[in-house]
């Protein structure tokens, strides 16, 4: 199962290499990396629902495989405290052609944003902390695949 939830950082280059290694039928690889934006914050903490998180991500990945002809896909999501600029999430998809790889990566991100049980809490430079609110645009992004 190419789904990982972890506190540790990951290496996008190594993940891309592993995704395509030994399969010369792949013509297109798309990756998405999500980073902690540092505007006004000192730290971002990711909480999640252990058990359900992995199931939700695996199901999103399975749905992408059912919908597009993919030779491979990977989803990595970090949890715990993260500094500004740190990597949060990595999604990569491999296919024969670029359209499938692009669409599948966007699909996975849209559903990850609306279905996977993660919550972000920001510690601001003024010492306050707040839970990040869900964005309506994320819901509408997921709706377009219906």
């Amino acid at each position: 199962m190419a789904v990982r939830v972890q506190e540790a950082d990951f290496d996008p280059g190594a993940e891309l290499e592993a995704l395509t290694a030994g399969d010369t039928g792949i013509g297109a690889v798309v990756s998405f990396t999500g980073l902690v934006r540092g505007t006004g914050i000192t730290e971002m903490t990711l909480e999640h629902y252990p058990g359900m998180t992995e199931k939700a991500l695996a199901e999103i990945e399975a749905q992408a495989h059912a919908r597009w002809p993919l030779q491979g896909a990977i989803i990595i999501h970090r949890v715990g405290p993260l500094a500004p600029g740190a990597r949060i999430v990595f999604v990569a998809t491999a296919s024969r052609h670029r359209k499938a790889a692009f669409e599948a990566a966007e699909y996975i991100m849209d559903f990850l944003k609306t279905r996977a049980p993660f919550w972000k809490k920001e510690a601001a430079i003024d010492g306050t902390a707040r839970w990040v609110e869900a964005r309506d645009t994320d819901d509408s992004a997921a709706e377009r695949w219906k």
Partner: protein
Amino acid sequence: MQVLYFAWLRERIGVGSEDVSPPDTVTTVGGLIDWLKTREDRYAAAFADTKSIRVAIDQEQADFDASIAGAREIALFPPVTGG
């Protein structure tokens, strides 16, 4: 049954999970939340705006009118914000 709380719901209620034994008249998620609200003020405050509450029954997303019969684990949380 086990009830789990996440993010600001966990913080407002003060625990991440607890065992609860609602009466037999509580049959749905919505009923469970109404019953929790009667227990203590912190529950009433946490669940004041149910539009901001999402539900999973045994780790699958569910609606407020979903039955809780036989459920082992019911999770209540704000809309997710990962990615």
